[in-house]
């Protein structure tokens, strides 16, 4: 490729920045009250390890808006998507791109806690309405809580807390806790332990291994030698699937009952098959929940995304509901923030997981269900905890 074969003029490369500035000069259309389109920024992982939840959230959110006639507060909607690749170093810039360059009115995101915290920091600074459809990091509705930040999913503490009482009810007094050594792992096991100990249980051993290591063999052997009454774990995705298979392969299935936050089986139940039999888990959703919303939602989601709905899809769907409730209340005027935020915070959200409200820290106050896995299927045993609120440690709202 010799130089005269190229048409690049000498200056274009170095002047790229100035040209970039010119692009942003397109005069933003004068926003006439409700007529302008509502710009919704979807900052979700479309590549990398969490791509599957990312896609489910996006599809379910759009489904909810479509079910509402494609309108929010009477305004048409325009989606702007950014693939955050679950890469924390890019989090701040992706959020800034959506908020300052694309000037989105609402930010929906994301899955990975590290990325979500960075995103929430930008949203707090810029004051953009943000709904987090998954990342369970306590901080987002704790120290970093803000009037414009809401969550439609859970805090890591929330699904795990009721499991403490569930084990006590099953007559199990000595438990081993195990998870990855990362914030979500500590928050979840912390929730379980708080409830378990409060009801007279004792945690005989806490095992944390490096994220995302999956060589569980060594620890299962240790658990076998300790012979606790029961085991509580917090794992998700590939790690969860492997743990279930190793637990069974190590001959512990059936000998030492296994409990977990719902993510131990969610999304991997079919792949795990019989190895997951008997696992009891607590989560704010279950595929088999029989309520009208869930019966309507699951086939609708399947039709749109041609894959089964899961807890991530429900959380994306409910984020849509929260936005619609708020914007309808202020008739589409995104500037009326006080009324908008109050409307969302005070709303009762009809969701496939059952109705829920939002706590002071804008985290769902919701029922946590007890489920058991049997032959690749999941049955709901009942409600482990009615309308459980996240304590929102450090939130002064």
């Amino acid at each position, binding site marked *: 490729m010799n130089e005269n074969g190229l048409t690049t003029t000498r200056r274009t490369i170095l002047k790229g920045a100035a040209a970039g500035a010119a692009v942003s000069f397109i005069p933003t259309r004068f926003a006439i009250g409700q007529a302008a389109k509502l710009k919704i920024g979807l900052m979700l992982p479309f590549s990398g390890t969490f791509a599957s939840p990312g896609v489910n959230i996006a599809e379910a959110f759009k489904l909810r808006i479509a079910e509402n006639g494609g309108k929010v507060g009477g305004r048409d909607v325009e989606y702007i998507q950014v693939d955050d690749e679950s890469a924390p170093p890019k989090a701040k810039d992706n959020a800034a791109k959506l908020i300052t360059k694309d000037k989105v009115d609402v930010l929906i995101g994301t899955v990975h806690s590290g990325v979500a915290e960075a995103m929430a920091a930008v949203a707090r600074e810029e004051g953009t309405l943000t709904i987090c459809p998954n990342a369970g990091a306590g901080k987002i509705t704790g120290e970093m809580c803000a009037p414009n930040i809401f969550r439609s999913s859970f805090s890591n503490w929330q699904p795990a807390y009721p499991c403490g009482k569930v084990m006590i009810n099953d007559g199990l007094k000595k438990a081993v806790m195990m998870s990855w050594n990362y914030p979500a792992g500590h928050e979840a096991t912390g929730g379980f332990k708080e409830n378990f100990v409060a009801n007279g249980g004792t945690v005989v051993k806490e095992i944390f291994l490096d994220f995302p290591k999956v060589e569980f063999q060594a620890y299962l052997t240790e658990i076998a030698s300790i*012979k606790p009454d029961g085991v509580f774990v917090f794992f998700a995705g590939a790690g969860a*699937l492997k743990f279930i298979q190793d637990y069974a392969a190590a*001959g512990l299935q059936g000998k030492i009952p296994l409990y977990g936050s719902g993510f131990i089986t969610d999304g991997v139940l079919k792949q795990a098959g019989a190895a997951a039999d008997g696992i009891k888990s607590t989560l704010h959703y279950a595929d088999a929940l029989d309520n009208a919303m869930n019966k309507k939602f699951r086939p609708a989601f399947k039709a749109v995304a041609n894959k089964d709905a899961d807890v991530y899809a429900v959380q994306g769907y409910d984020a849509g509901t929260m936005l619609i409730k708020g914007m309808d209340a202020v008739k589409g005027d995104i500037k009326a923030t006080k009324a908008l935020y109050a409307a969302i915070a005070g709303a009762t959200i009809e969701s496939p997981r059952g109705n829920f409200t939002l706590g002071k820290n804008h985290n769902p106050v919701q029922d946590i269900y007890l489920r058991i896995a049997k032959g690749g299927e999941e049955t709901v045993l009942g409600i482990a905890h009615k309308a459980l609120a996240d304590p929102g440690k450090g939130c002064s709202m």
Partner: protein
Amino acid sequence: MDTSYLLIQTLNGLQYGFLLFLVASGLTLIFGIMGIINLAHGSFFMIGAYLCYWLAEKTGSLWLAILLGVPISVLVGLVVERFGIVFLYKRDHLYQVLLTYGLILIFNELRAILWGNDVQSVKIPAFLAASIPLTETQAYPIYRLFISFVCLLLAAGLYVVIQRTKLGMTIRAGAANREMVQALGLDINRLFAIVFALGAALAAFAGMVNAPVSSVYPGMGEEILIVSFVVVVIGGLGSIKGAFLGAMMIGMADTFGSVLLPTGSGTVVYAVMALVLLWRPQGLFGRAI
């Protein structure tokens, strides 16, 4: 640490070591003979695992999946060599690192397009699914023994090929002095293509045979790549013997490291490498640079 506990840990260490050897042997061969650092070698491990899941799904049998999967991965290796690696032979290592870095991005996205991003699992065949009870509560899965056995077999086979066959001789000669082999009129391109395809197939096979245990998920390629680099560096670039010893050392170090030091065990593997290189900068069996 009673005996059965120790036995299980050793077996785990060996099994992880054998697996690492399959991936590392290809990596060290490709470097030793072709002088190429292949950052995308981990992707072959991932492709193998996904091929195994996909074919097992289609044929319903792990054996058929592996039987069909290996030739496909050899083909993938040949294609990558002819359309990418061939440009790198005379280029220095910086360009090799960057080109194969680009390949990783491409392989990750092709996987996402072909097989999606969900976590998949591969059934262990019935007669291997049981576990050998060691004590009242401790048992060791037979399939893991099967993996170690198969990997050992392959390692022995590789040793025989390298030491005893004509191809093996040309490979060893190529590792010692690439220019001389070329000067002797041997078709160096054919040798490079075979070596690269062999390396790719070894890594893919490791992915396939391990898939039922590790399950199949995005990003699995990159995890094993870094550890395989450590194994190759410890063993000495270009040396199969070194790769085997390095793999065993790292297999044990990682297994016992994560038991004795649950948090922070990630650094044990690298500490071992730093110690070896302090003692012998060119690795255990590497040629002095």
